[in-house]
């Protein structure tokens, strides 16, 4: 195995023997095309004119005034589809085309990655199949309609916790059965090598733009950069270009859910980076939520996109090497931050992104964050209105 396959002790390729040739081919082809002028030309064409890059780095005046520090929002919510997910789906769908695959499969939690996959699949003429947990199909219904409208076939998954981890299992099962024709378009920096690297690279457009934009506006780099973490793709994409700028604080905010406790089968949160233990899930060694025997615990979050028992291996590595700070925001704190951004800035944030905002609002006054702060606003919240309305009516536990 190449040393690129691991991040410290994390990462690797813990997958079925049948997938080994496919992931080796993917690694080879990615390595070739990532510098290929035709590929890059196509990539920029779709990223700029289809997805809507570059996105603004918005100085949130009202929030900044109220909380006493300079808060910038990286507006990934303005992208086509409403989330950062499309940066990755365009990249991988294009790669699939260049590799001669005509079918893509994907898993989805919130439905954001599924939607972004369906968009890229339609634009690039690829047959698109999306696996989605039944519980997520229920709580993110409009995204199911969107995917179907875009021509994707959505398969509800009834196994296990009926959420993202089960959708990934099912997508892997599909891939292993159709590996010749099919590319597995994974939606975050998780899975076997080379996926964590590929997804990070395609998402790094976020951090690269932030770096250029903040210099233009402030003539210096920020003190802290904050992103929410489910699997970790928007976080890695934002952080990656800053990892070597060690004076900048990088903070990952996971879903603290209802509480940081666990029952025998389920965690009441999704904080695998904060409190998970080393283990193997979905092809990689990383921090995961598991019981004392190694059975995977179900996770919980009010936001479907953070509701995952694992996390990208590179984030586990950055945490262990103390480059990355980790924090949590609870369901309630995320909801409060959601409303605060709506009222103060006229922006409806995704509940996922609201976790990152919540952390900043909590810490702004303590001086911990420094004076210039960038929050990656990974998505918009239109998809979450049902959830927010239900929870404000006290129907709870969604």
């Amino acid at each position, binding site marked *: *195995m190449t040393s690129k396959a691991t991040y410290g002790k994390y990462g*690797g*390729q*813990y*997958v*079925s*023997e*049948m997938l*080994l*040739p*496919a992931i080796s081919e993917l690694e080879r082809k990615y390595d070739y095309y990532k510098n290929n002028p035709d590929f890059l030309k196509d990539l920029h064409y779709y990223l700029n004119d289809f997805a809507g890059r570059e996105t603004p780095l918005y100085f949130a005046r009202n929030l900044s005034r109220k909380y006493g520090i300079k808060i910038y929002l990286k507006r990934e919510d303005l992208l086509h589809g409403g989330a950062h997910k499309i940066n990755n789906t365009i990249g991988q769908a294009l790669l699939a085309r260049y590799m001669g695959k005509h079918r893509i499969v994907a898993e989805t939690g919130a439905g954001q990655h599924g939607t972004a996959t369906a968009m890229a699949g339609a634009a690039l003429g690829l047959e698109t199949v999306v696996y989605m947990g039944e519980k997520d199909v229920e709580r993110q219904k409009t995204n199911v309609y969107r995917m179907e409208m875009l021509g994707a076939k959505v398969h509800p998954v009834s*196994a*296990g916790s009926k959420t993202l*981890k*089960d959708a990934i*299992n099912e997508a*892997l*099962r599909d891939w*292993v*059965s*159709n*590996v010749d024709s099919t590319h597995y378009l994974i939606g975050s920096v998780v899975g076997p090598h080379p996926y964590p690297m590929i997804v990070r690279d395609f998402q790094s457009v976020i951090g690269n733009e932030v770096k250029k934009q903040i210099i233009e506006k402030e003539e210096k780099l920020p003190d802290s950069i904050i992103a929410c973490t489910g699997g970790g793709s928007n976080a890695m994409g934002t952080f990656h270009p800053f990892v070597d700028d060690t004076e900048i604080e990088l903070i990952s905010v996971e879903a603290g859910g209802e509480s940081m406790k666990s029952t025998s089968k389920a965690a009441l949160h999704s904080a695998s980076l904060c409190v998970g233990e*080393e*283990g*193997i*899930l*979905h*092809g990689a*060694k990383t921090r*995961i939520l*598991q019981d*004392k*025997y*190694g*059975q*995977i615990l179900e996770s919980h979050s009010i936001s479907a996109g953070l509701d995952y028992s694992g996390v990208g291996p590179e984030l586990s590595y950055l945490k262990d090497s103390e480059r990355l700070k980790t924090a949590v925001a609870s369901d309630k704190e995320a909801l409060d931050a959601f409303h605060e951004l709506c009222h103060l800035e006229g922006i409806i944030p995704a509940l996922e992104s609201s976790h990152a905002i919540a952390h900043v609002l909590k810490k702004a006054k303590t001086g911990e964050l420094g004076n210039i702060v960038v929050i990656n606003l990974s998505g918009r919240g239109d998809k979450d209105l049902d959830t927010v309305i239900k929870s404000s009516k006290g129907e709870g536990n969604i």
Partner: protein
Amino acid sequence: MKISEKFDDLDENEAALISYVCAGDPSPDATKNIVSSLVRGGADIIELGLPFSDPMADGPTIQAASKRAIEAGMNPDLYFELVSSISNKFNIPFVCMTYYNLIYKRGTEKFVQDCAQSGISGVIVPDLPVEESDELANACQKNNVDLILIITPVTGKERIQKVTEKSSGFLYIVSRLGVTGARSNIAENTGQLLKKVNSSIPKAVGFGIYTPKQVKNVVLSGANGVIVGSAFVNIIASNDDIYNRIEKFAAELKNNCYINYSKS
């Protein structure tokens, strides 16, 4: 019993019937009776699945069995207790099939020691390709437990070499792509794949085999063993006269493990 002893014991024209069931499905006690039925029916080696919450390599049948078993309380501690209580009653090898996280969490060395002590002769880990298997392979070698690795139609020449060098007991040949589960068409190229694998270790073919006729074809194509799992698990799931039906079905499959039918 060692796996190699079992293969040595077989007649020249005889293939091993290797049966898979999930330990603890539907209950630990039932597993004892199920094993007993399998042995009476003529199973030569028994793979006992240690159920994992997220069985990526399994189709719906074994996923459901894993879920039933975990819900009925099966866990690695109970698993080794169960194996200890039955392994010396039957003079056949037991093989543990499970996913890597359960091994890793227990500590690879300890897991393999527990295998050796309870009477497990080999381990199969479907989410552990040869490239990631050093730690487990070392622990297995130290404790005299066989590591059974998998070869598939897409395993290239070089990797076949690597896999055969690291395997012992038998080679698990998967003749079609996909997950576990009964299929009416198992690949016609089983014979070709078997020929491609040049090794003195016995070769057993699995994934999708569930009828006596398929068993016969696999044996005729040159396999030293045939692995049948989902078909037994389906009988267990039916909850209908399972012990008798398992014994009868095992006997019928075993009958097709002889090239000239000289023993039937």
